[in-house]
């Protein structure tokens, strides 16, 4: 069997995803894609179980497939990162730090919107109801309970687009060549 060096692992992960991040499992640092981290139940560092479940549900309603591809692990990983190194589009939108507050409040407000508009817990929404909730969140400039829910929608949708379409595998889904300049050096993701 060919020895899988760290370099080879990085290269393989890069070619497969470009979203290879360092996750900790059982006290051991591992280089995993968010999809792999999700599949291996890597413990979340910032989001609670309920927050993670609801965030994944909303992301999947916005960009189908994003939950399976680990959008929640991607976001959770980034919420734990040095903000200057963070890869979230929230940076572009000048979301105030800490980003964790923005994501947890966004989930909380979305859940409250479900209760008010659909008279259901967000956890019990079917696909049509989820679509109605997201539609309400996506109204340009929408502010609910003094929270910029439209901005939250833009950010979460973009995070989900990142994991589904922003990687070499995502480009392949769109039949677009990725054409990276150079492979990243070892340790680039730390």
């Amino acid at each position: 069997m060919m020895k899988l060096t760290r370099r080879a692992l990085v290269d393989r992960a890069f070619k497969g995803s470009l979203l290879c991040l360092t996750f900790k499992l059982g006290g051991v640092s591992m280089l995993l894609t968010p999809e792999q981290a999700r599949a291996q139940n890597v413990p979340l560092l910032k989001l609670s179980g309920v927050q993670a479940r609801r965030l994944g549900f909303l992301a999947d309603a916005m960009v189908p497939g994003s939950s399976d591809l680990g959008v929640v692990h991607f976001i959770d990983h980034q919420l734990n990162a040095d903000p200057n190194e963070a890869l979230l589009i929230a940076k572009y939108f000048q979301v105030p730090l800490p980003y964790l507050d923005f994501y947890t409040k966004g989930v909380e407000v979305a859940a409250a919107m479900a209760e008010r508009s659909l008279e259901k817990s967000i956890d019990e929404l079917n696909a049509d109801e989820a679509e109605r909730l997201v539609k309400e969140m996506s109204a340009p400039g929408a502010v609910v309970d003094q929270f910029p829910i439209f901005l939250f929608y833009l950010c979460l949708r973009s995070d989900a687009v990142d994991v589904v379409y922003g990687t070499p595998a995502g480009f392949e889904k769109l039949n677009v060549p990725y054409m990276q300049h150079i492979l990243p050096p070892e340790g680039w993701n730390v």
Partner: protein
Amino acid sequence: MSKVKEPVDVVVVGTGAAGSLFAAVLAEAGKDVLVLERGGARKLTDLYSSQIWARRLKWASPPVVEKGPDSIWFNFNAGHGYGGAAVHHYAVWPRFHEADFTEKSEYGRALDWPLDYSDLRPFYDLVQSDVGISGDAKKEIWRPEGDPYPLPPVLVTNHGNVIARGFAALDMQTAPIPMAVLTQPYKGRPPCIWDGWCDAGCPIGALANPLAVYLPRAEKAGARLQPHSHVTRVLVDKPGKKATGVEYYTPDGEAIVQPAGAVVLCAFTIENARILLNSANTNHPNGLANKSGSLGRYLMSHPAVGISGLFNEDMQNFLGATGGQLLCQDAFGKKSDPDGAFGSRQWEIGLALKPNDLLGIAMTRPDIFGKELHAFMLEGARHMGSMVGVCEDQPLPQNRIELATEKDQFGFPLARIVYETSAEGRKLWQTAAAEGVEIFKAAGAREAWHGPQGGQHIMGGTIMGTDPASSVLNAEGQAHEVNNLFVGGPGVFPTSSAANSTFTAKAVAMKTAKFMLENWGSLNG
């Protein structure tokens, strides 16, 4: 008590478009140059081809509080770490036109620069020769006089050609876009491979970002680059007429004094003004170099509109440069707007597209989600066309940078931005939005739409002028009140033009750097 370092000839604050040039030119002339950068160190090989990873080039907690009513899109325009914003800039480098410098005297509008195009032309030519610009000076019919481009034009694919059809149908001209991206090997740098990753930072140095051209030159000539050095104030002597150096903080909060024979602020538009405002002292109670009260004022940003459309052709939109393939400046005349708005406009045509990120395919239709999104993404990946309209903003004194009540980790006030797009700029934007959709339809788009108003480039705040009573700097980028204090970057512009700002910021910086060298003996006199 602050630690005091050994004096240097020049301290440059910031490693971006202007700072890198100052460092190279001054160090090559034998000056002992120290460059302080607030962010981290970075080299070309740190730039990965990914819109996701490119976000590391942005600020997480910018030293800015935006109060509106409009945003200047600070984080979109600014940068963090070696190379600053210019690391992720798109390298569209048209020159400002003659009329951009004389709007007050020629039209009774806006402000005049204290120099005209002919004063700046040699420095445009010099910078152009340094970095290598690709273009076609003859086909660029609107271009003011200047040396021909040293390199042939950038790649034009179906993307550019199909959209150009729409311009032609409306009797509008297009020409290869002038771009600081190499189409052939040039001065040891390789040409572009047209993969559209400019926004993520070009790691091969084909795009003239500071990491590719002026920072290596600066270091080779002996300039020292120092990361994680947060400059808070310019220090002056007792009479307040001479800068003695700067104060900066290390990440662990240690205050350091760096004495210098001359200070050059190149920390980008907002931070330059903030540093000067925070440098208030007995002789300069309203901020250093602010006897006129104009420090921080005349803040400008180009109102920009993205046009998107779906065409039957395979647009090959993943190829090319992020900044586009073609240019149209038919509406650059100050009085060419059909609705009577004053100012210039231009089109940058055929921007290379990626699926994700702020300017990606998905974000052109933020209203689409769920099951419909994948079909849209598939369609867009092959058939989407894209261009951006850039409009002139007017210099208004009420648009300003001031000190906020909020403070940074070292106890210094953040910058507070009060900004509203000028009425003329807004009108130009509306004209551009409608015209762009019309052009796409004339080019055969099945669907065409425009995005919301965005802001490109941030200018003003430390403007140059002839009169010390109404400006911060003279024609040499030198503070009226402190003759060994200089400012570089687009913050020195008294008018915004509609041309992208980096080339002009470089040309002005080159002029200033040469002035410093020619007048070195008198700077400390």
